[in-house]
Structures are given as C-alpha cells and as structure tokens.
C-alpha cells in the first residue's frame, strides 16, 4: 500500500515531513486502530488540500481505500474526520463507490450522530441510489442536513427532490429554527413555478407566527415584484409585520426589502426608514454599515441614479465623490464618520452626522432647478436621522449660485414639518453655510482652490474633504509659509474653544492643535510627516481630471454658459501651477509636474484665444518657455499653444523659438528678458508707412517711439487671475496723436517721425492756444505755421519748428494776434479790420529730460554690464536736500528716466541708497544712470542736512553722456 505513483510526482511526503517519517498506510492498517494517530493524519491531509496542494489521483484513491478500514473504528471523532476527508477528496479520487457503501451503512445505522454527517457527504458522491434514505431522514430527527442536501441536489436533479414535497412540508413542524429556514427555502425551490401555492403558503405561515420568516421575506418580495402587486397585498402585510420581529436580522431584512420594493410610497417607506435610521446610530458597526448601504440603494433609485456612492466605504468615499464633483450631481454625506479617516488618521467618531450638502452644476440656472434642488434636499432629509434638523445645498452654473436649505421640525402632532428656504441661509447659518457653499461653488476667479477669507491668509484648503461632523467639516489644508504642509482643518459653525481643549488633551502626542479662528482649528502633524509635494500634485491632478470632464461637457455646449466655464478652467489651472510653483519642493525636476504643465499649456492654446484676456495667457505660456526645467518639451508645448493664437502671436512664438534654439545668453537677455520695449501701435503705423514709401533703406527700429512705461497699479491680491490689467493697449500714445496731426502739415513731413513729445506746458492760462514765432537767443526757428482764425470759444493749433540749441535756455514766446468782433448770430466778422494785440507767453524750458524716453529695463544690471565702461562718466555732487526720498524723486524728475529694479523705493531707516535709472536718449541710444547717495554731506549752509551723491552715467552714445553730465553740473 505504500507504493507511490510514479506518474504523479508529488506525494504526501513531498508536502510535509511528517509523511516521510511514518507511513500513513501503515497507521491506517494497524489493529486495533489508533484513532488519535489516524485523526492526525487525516487532519494533515485535509490541511494540505486546503492549502491548495493537489493530491495525485492514484494516491487519493489509495487513501480512500485505506479509509474504508477505518470505518471499523467506533471512535466518533475519527469517523467524523473520515467523513470530512471523503468530502474533500471525493472530487479527486476514483471509485468513491467503495466509500459510499460504507456511508450508506452508516446512514441506515442507529447512531444519529453518524447518520447526519454521512448523509451530508453522500450527495457529493452519489445521489440517485440513496434517494430512499433521504426521504426517511427528512422526516427524521435530523432533517436540516437532509434538507440542505436536497437543496444541493435540486441543482442536479430537481425532479427527484420534487417527489419529496410531502416529507419536506412535514418538517415545518420541527422546533428547530434552522430546520424551518432550510425547509421553507427548499419548499420554495420545489414549488417555484407554482405561484398560487407559494402565496397560499405565505398567508398560512404569516398567520401562525413563524419563527424563521427570513426566507419568506424575500419570497414575498419576489412575488410582489413579479406580479406587480401593490402594498395592499397580503404579501406586503407579511413583510411589514416582520419589521416588528424581535430578531434584528429579520427586521433589517424586512426593512431593506421594503426599501428596494418599487411600489412603495414614501409614507409606507417611512416605517422602514425609521428602523434603518435607528440602526445607523447603533453601536454595532455591521448594523450601521448594513443600514447605510440600504439607504444608499434607495438614494440611487430615487434620484434616477444620478446620486453616486462609491463602494469604497472607508474614508475614501469623499475623495471619490469629489472626483465627480464637477460635472455631475453630487452628494456628500458622512455615513462613515464613525470610521477613522484613512488619510489623516483623525478620529471622526466624535462627530455625528448633521450636514448634507448637495451641489449641482447646471449649464444655465433656471428657477425650476432650484425647485429641483429643494426637492432633493427634502428627500435626503427624509432619510436622515431625526436628529438632523436641517440640510444645506447649493446649485450653480458658474454665474449664479443659489443656496437652499430645508429645515425639519416637528409640529404639535409629532409630524414632521418641512420648511424650504432660499434666502434664509446667509443670516441663519452665517458662517458655515457661507463658506461651505463657497467651497463647493467657488466663483469664477477662485474656482478650484479657494480661501476662507476670515481665516488667516496662510491657510489654503485643499479640495479634499476628510469628513463632515456635527455642524462642522474637516478639510485637508496646507499652510503656505509653514515648514511642513499638510494639516487637517476643522471648521465648525460653533465656537470650537471647548473642543480644542479636549483635543489638546487627547491628541497631545499626535497632533498640535491650534485654534486659528473662533470657529476653526488646525490639526498639525508633527514635523517629519510632511506630505507636501505629492499631496499638492495629487490634488492638482484631481482638479485637472475634473476640469477635463467639465471641459468635455462645455465643448458640447457652445453657448453662453460655456464661456464662463472655460475662463474658470484656465484660471484654475494657472492657480494650480502657481501653487505648485510656490512650493519650493515642487520645483524639483518632476515628470508629473512637467507633464501637467505641458497639458495645461496645450489647454491654454485651445482656450486662450477665446478668453477675456488672451494677453495674460500668452504671457503665461511664454513664462513657461523660459522657466521650464525640461525646456525642449515645454518649448514644443508652448509653441504649439502660442501658434493657436492670432498671427501676431505666432510670429512672436517663432521668434522666441528661434532664439531659444540658439541658446545664446545675450540674445535671450536682449529679446526675451528685456523685451523690445517699443510701442506696438507706433511700430505698426511706421512699418505701414515704410512699406508704402519706395525706399531701399532698412527700417530703423530706433525711430519707433519707446513704449510708455505703464503706471504701476496696486497689485491685485486675489489669487484668481482672470482680471485684465488696465493697460497699455487701451491707452493711445501721446506720440501717436501728435504724429497724426503733424504729418498732415506738409512743411514738417521731411522731419520724419516724432521721437518724443514732452508733457504739455501751459503757456498762458489754460484753454488758450498759442503760436510761437519769436526769435529767442540760441534758438533758430526753422518754420512756423500760423493759425488762420480762432473763433470765440473755439481752439486752433499753430506749430513752430525749432532747431535745438547746444545749451539749454528758456524759450520766450509772444503771441501776436488780431482780434475781430463778430456778429453774434451770423458768426461773420463785422469789421474788415480788427486790432492787433500781443501777448507775452511764459518761457518754455527745454531740459535734458525732454531728450530722453523712459524705459523699463527688467534686468538693469545686465544692461549695465553690457554697455560697459566705454562711455562712462562719474561725478560727485552734494545736494542740499533733506531726505533720500525727496532726492530720488527730484533726480528721477530731472533725468526723465525710469527707475529700475524698484530702486525708487527706499527701505525705511536707511542712510544710503542706490538709484538705477534707464532711458533711451534721442537717436535711440541707451542711457543708464547709477546714482549712489548717502546722507550727511556738508553744504555751504552748515546747518542744513545734505546728501552726497555719486552719479555714474553710461551710454551707448558718447554725446548723451556728455550732455547728461554737463546738464547735471549746471543744475547742481
């Protein structure tokens, strides 16, 4: 017997060392049988099979044969183990008939405890021949086993089992609950097709208080659904009666069955819901879980499957929901508030459920939508525990946000009374509702990430909701200036002071609890548990997904609503990116980051031209080109993004692309960092003129007026970036206006375009226009155009062309004119001759600042180095000016140049300062001035404070330096 099958390489000895030391066969063959040893061996065999090891067929059959010997033993334990082994091995071994005969003998025997198991095992091997015994056993003392075996048999040969109906029915009278349970199920299976009988059965059993109605609940529900019966049927009454059963399992089964029935009205539903709500507050987790799941099913059915719950029951539920937040209807609730939040490890057990928020995104808000929202809220409140008194919701189309609240109270008759309100919210629940809804429905400029204004500015809430608690929500958040940056923030609509002190004791070792607001506090992870970069990127991707979804939606719209959408989308992405940028860790070369940026650039390319401020996005793309650490990829992406804007931008993109390809630092600095600062409109005008005139001369960019430096605006603080900066484009250049006027005069045409126009100087009182024709010393009047007639209350223009002198001195002008009286009605002069008059005009001073254009050099020092000391002049001055501020102001005014690198701002309490100025001298020469000044010089007047200043001037043109130096000396 100890032979092993050579074909089946694996034997028991291979699996376990125990089989090597002694032969199982020998043990089985011992007389008298050593039951304990045999049990051990059998246990091991079963364990092997259970571990997933495959027994060789031959060996299994051998064991089978050997086991028949063991039937001789009277040991009950051994007998049971034999049964078990047979069951496990019956699928493997051949010739199970041998054992079956032994089993049959056991079944017919007198020992009850043998018969049951023997029967149980039999069905697995051979059934038909034992039908006779089966019948007998069903009515016997151990019907349960026989019944289940019959159920198994039903699968294979239903007609055999059907013959046992009478015997089965008798078993109902058995005292054992389980027997009833099995019996009813079997009975139903046999009689399945015969609905009438089944119905009769149920009616019959519902009258005699059934001890195990479990199976029947489902049977009854099945009948109701199949037959389309209403709740008036006796079947429903039966299920309803089960709600009052004393066993929780039955109550739950009945409740969940009612909830899933299609025909139930809300009123009838309420009893089942009450039961489930009771379960939710049960201390048993399984009960809570079961109740919640059933309620979820109901939500799904009720709201057309638009409400989605995820299967991930723990913690993650919120994240998954938020993933779906954007385009769809979404419901947030905290059924899992008893579970510890996985992401934060915070114990949310303390927070029972109270707030539910619903957000729906619409393409265009209609009044009926708000009605719908209220309806949803009401439904959800219906299913909420009675302790929840109100529910909040919001609905938005990105333009408007409507809030809604449904409140529930009990009236005198203890009936629930519902109040819906749209406006109440802001006042009643002030703080939380406002921010809660703000969070869900963030406006266009703050879409995605949004700050709670009343909270400290450095807290930024991620879009991850960790949980909702008693009138409170817990968010994941980050501190902008902190060292570590992932925290949990709990915002409550009550004061949290008490709670903070409790938590401080509870979590002293785990978190630092910091109250940041009367209604909010932070859980801070101890340092070292930083989750920053990943977290932020994770969130960015999350939002990105949402946006993509939203975008797909908006593409199909192509209407007004879609517009706000897109702006919001682009804004969000930029916010995300800027957030990522802000985080120093995220700046590391990061594949995710780059791919994100690339995809965003792509989106910019698609969306940019349609957005309100395309310039902003061009600028943004072009920043990426410069800053991106994986330049090639970014350049490709950026260029493709830019190419989608209009022609002008395409040209610009090509230029940048070419420049970057050269990878020349000087080129980069000249054309990209310090961009060409000419006035675009003037350039266009001049180029136009250039193309009309037939000329071979190359076009001189220097003749184009330099772009006026925009007035520094107060920085807008919002993180949203949708606002167009009131800007350069909208303002018409002063040069352009004058150029237009001057080019109309033929005498001036040969002069070429205007280089610079100084600010208007009032020569007389305002609103009087003058002509200048006088000869002044040093000035040569080249030409002047007199003004023919100026009518009363009218204006006229006269021009005078003056050649520049070598030195500057004031120009004196006299206005000569002839006054004629006019008829007030006809406007025709009454006299032929008027009288001549003269008017001495105020002097015009032409200073050095009139020769120079302000130019902002973003990178002043680089330009300074570029020019080098070739044309450099240095001089030291002592100025009797009291403060540095005043000095700086005066110098800027006098020089007429632009202060760069914010050097016009002087940090407080400083005794010295360096001012950097930049300008373009007439003729297109760059002029740079560095003025180093210090307090405490000595002047002629010993009492006065004075400033010592060292002036260094550099320029590409020698004369410019000299002029500057010279004029400076004069004006000392």
């Amino acid at each position, binding site marked *: 017997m100890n032979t092993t099958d050579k074909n089946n390489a694996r034997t028991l000895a291979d699996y376990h060392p125990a089989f090597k030391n002694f032969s199982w066969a020998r043990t089985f063959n011992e007389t008298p049988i050593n039951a304990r040893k045999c049990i051990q061996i059998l*246990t091991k065999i079963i364990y092997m099979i259970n571990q*997933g090891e495959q027994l060789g067929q031959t060996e299994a059959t051998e064991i089978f044969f050997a086991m028949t010997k063991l039937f001789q033993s009277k040991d009950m334990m051994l007998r049971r183990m034999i049964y078990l082994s047979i069951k496990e091995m019956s699928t493997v071994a051949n010739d199970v008939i041998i054992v079956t005969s032994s089993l049959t003998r056991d079944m017919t025997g007198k020992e009850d405890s043998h018969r049951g198991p023997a029967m149980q095992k039999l069905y697995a091997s051979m059934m038909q021949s034992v039908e006779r015994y089966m019948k007998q056993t069903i009515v016997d003392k151990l019907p349960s086993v026989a019944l289940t075996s019959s159920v198994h048999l039903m699968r294979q040969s239903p007609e055999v089992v059907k013959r046992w109906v009478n015997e089965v029915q008798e078993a109902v009278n058995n005292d054992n609950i389980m027997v009833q349970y099995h019996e009813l199920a079997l009975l139903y299976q046999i009689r399945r097709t015969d609905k009438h009988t089944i119905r009769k059965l149920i009616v019959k059993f519902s009258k005699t208080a059934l001890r195990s109605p479990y199976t029947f609940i489902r049977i009854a529900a099945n009948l109701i659904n199949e037959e389309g019966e209403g709740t008036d049927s006796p079947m429903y009454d039966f299920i309803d009666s089960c709600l009052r059963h004393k066993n929780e399992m039955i109550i739950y089964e009945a409740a969940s069955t009612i909830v899933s029935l299609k025909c139930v009205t809300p009123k009838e539903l309420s009893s089942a819901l009450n039961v489930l709500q009771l379960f939710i507050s049960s201390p048993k987790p399984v009960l809570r879980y079961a109740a919640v799941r059933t309620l979820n099913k109901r939500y799904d059915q009720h709201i057309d499957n638009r409400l989605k719950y995820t299967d991930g029951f723990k913690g993650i539920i919120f994240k998954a929901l938020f993933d779906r937040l954007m385009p769809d209807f979404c419901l947030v609730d905290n059924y899992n508030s008893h579970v510890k939040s996985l992401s934060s490890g915070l114990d949310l057990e303390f927070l029972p459920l109270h707030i539910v928020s619903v957000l729906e995104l619409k393409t265009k808000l209609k009044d009926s939508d708000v009605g719908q929202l209220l309806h949803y809220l009401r439904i959800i409140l219906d299913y909420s525990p009675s302790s929840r008194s109100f529910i909040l919701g919001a609905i938005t189309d990105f333009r408007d946000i409507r809030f809604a609240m449904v409140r529930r109270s009990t009236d005198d008759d203890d009936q629930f009374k519902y109040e819906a309100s749209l406006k109440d919210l802001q006042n009643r629940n002030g703080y939380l509702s406002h921010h809660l809804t703000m969070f869900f429905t963030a406006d266009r400029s703050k879409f995605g990430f949004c700050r709670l204004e009343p909270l400290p500015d450095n807290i930024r809430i991620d879009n991850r909701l960790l949980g909702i608690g008693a009138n409170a929500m817990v968010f994941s958040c980050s501190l902008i200036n902190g060292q570590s940056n992932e925290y949990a923030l709990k915002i409550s609509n009550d004061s949290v002071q008490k709670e903070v002190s409790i938590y401080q004791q509870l979590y002293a070792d785990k978190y630092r609890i910091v109250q940041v607001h009367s209604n909010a506090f932070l859980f801070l992870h101890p340092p070292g548990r930083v989750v920053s970069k990943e977290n932020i990127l994770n969130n960015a991707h999350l939002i990105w997904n949402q946006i993509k979804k939203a975008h797909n939606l908006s593409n199909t719209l192509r209407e007004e609503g879609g517009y706000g959408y897109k702006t919001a989308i682009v804004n969000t992405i930029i916010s995300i990116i800027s957030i990522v940028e802000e985080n120093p860790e995220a700046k590391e070369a990061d594949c995710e980051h780059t791919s994100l940026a690339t995809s965003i650039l792509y989106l910019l390319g698609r969306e940019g031209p349609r957005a309100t401020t395309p310039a902003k996005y061009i600028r943004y793309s072009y920043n990426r080109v410069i800053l991106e650490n994986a330049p090639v990829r970014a350049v490709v992406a950026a260029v493709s993004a830019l190419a989608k804007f209009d022609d002008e931008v395409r040209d610009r993109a090509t230029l940048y692309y070419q420049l970057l390809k050269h990878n020349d630092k000087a080129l980069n600095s000249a054309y990209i960092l310090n961009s060409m600062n000419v006035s675009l409109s003037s350039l266009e005008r001049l180029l136009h003129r250039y193309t009309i005139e037939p000329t071979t001369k190359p076009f001189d960019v220097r003749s184009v007026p330099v772009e006026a430096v925009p007035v520094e605006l107060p920085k807008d603080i919002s993180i949203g970036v949708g606002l167009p900066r009131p800007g350069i484009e909208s303002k018409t250049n002063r040069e352009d206006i004058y150029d237009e006027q001057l080019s109309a005069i033929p005498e001036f045409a040969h002069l070429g375009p205007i280089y610079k126009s100084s600010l208007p100087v009032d020569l007389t009182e305002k609103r009087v226009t003058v002509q200048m024709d006088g000869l002044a010393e040093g000035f040569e009047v080249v030409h002047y155009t007199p003004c023919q007639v100026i009518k009363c209350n009218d204006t006229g223009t006269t021009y005078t062309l003056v050649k520049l002198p070598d030195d500057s001195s004031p120009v004196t002008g006299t206005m000569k004119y002839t006054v004629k009286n006019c008829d007030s009605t006809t406007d025709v002069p009454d006299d032929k001759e008027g009288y001549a008059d003269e008017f001495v005009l105020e002097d015009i001073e032409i200073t050095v600042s009139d020769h120079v254009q302000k130019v902002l050099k973003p990178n002043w020092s680089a330009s300074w180095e570029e020019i080098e000391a070739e044309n450099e002049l240095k001089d030291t001055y002592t100025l009797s000016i009291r403060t540095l501020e005043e000095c700086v102001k005066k110098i800027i005014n006098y020089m007429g140049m632009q202060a760069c690198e914010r050097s016009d701002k002087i940090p407080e309490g400083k005794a010295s300062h360096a001012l950097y100025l930049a300008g373009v001298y007439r003729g297109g020469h760059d002029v740079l001035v560095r003025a180093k000044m210090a307090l405490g010089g000595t002047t002629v007047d010993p009492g006065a404070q004075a400033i010592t200043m060292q002036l260094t001037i550099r320029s590409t043109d020698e004369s410019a330096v000299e002029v500057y130096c010279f004029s400076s000396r004069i004006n000392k």
Partner: protein
Amino acid sequence: MVLENSFVPSLYVIKGIVILDNDGNRILAKYYNQSFSTVKEQKDFEKSLFNKTHKGAGDVILLDNLTIVYRNNVDLLFYVLGSTNENELMLNSVLTCLFESLSTMLRKNVEKKVLCENLDLIMLAVDEICDEGIILESDPMLITQRVQLRLDDIPLGEQTVSQVIHQAKEQIKWSLLK
C-alpha cells in the same frame, strides 16, 4: 447556477470562510460556489483582504464585489464572505457563531498555536456551520455540542493518563455531591 438577484431567495448565503494568521497566511479557507476558480486567485484575494483588514479591530468591508465581515483576535483573522446583496447581519451571525464556538472549544484561547493544535476541531466546526454555502447552524452552543464529543465516549484504552485521572476525579466529585 443560482441567480445573483437579491430577490431570488437562496440558501446559498456564504461565499467563503477564511481564517488567516497575522502574516496573512492561510490557516483555513473554504470557498463555496466557485467564487474563485484557481488557488492563485484565492491567495491573491486573501492577500488584498489581509492588507485591508489587518489593522482594523473588526468590522465589515466591501472587496471585489463581496461583503466581508471580519474579526481580529490576537494573531488570527476570521472572515466570512458573502455577496453584496446579502444580509450583512446574517453573515455577521455566522462569523459570531464561528468565533464563539471556536472560543468555547479552545477554552477562550483563540490564538494561532492553540488553533493549529486543534485543527481537526476547527475543520469540523466550519463544516457544521456551513455546507457548501448554506448556513447549517448559527448557534455556537449547538455547534460546540456537535463537534466536541464527550470525553466518556472515548474508549478508556485510548485516553491519556491525565484524562483518566481527570475523569476519575470528576466521578468522585459527583458521587460525593450526591
């Protein structure tokens, strides 16, 4: 096969009973109704199940479209698997029954070492509780009774000395009490 419709009443409630140790190794695993066709699938499932549950104190989770009630005790994890539309309370009653009956049989020492020594008892108990997915019995008392044989039934010759002495003591005690 049995229809997976929540409305079709079926006795096939349980999809599996699994006992794992605290390293995630299988001690005993019974799957019914071919929920997993190969051993590899079973082991993979157990692995993910273990990863999800070994920290919790005992609860209920959803995994691979199965509702799983589980219980964590010392160095053992007990699981009862059922389909998602199954009555969770029923599964829980099976789990409770399994645990309670083991606890009684192992004299409250429900831990890996003791469990492995009495693996035969455990196998029998599982077999008594569930037959191919049908709940046979959910009363731990009955299960214990059916599995654990009275000591007197064992022939004297096969008892150990301590057992005999213990039995003798008991008999003397009872005779004195009478």
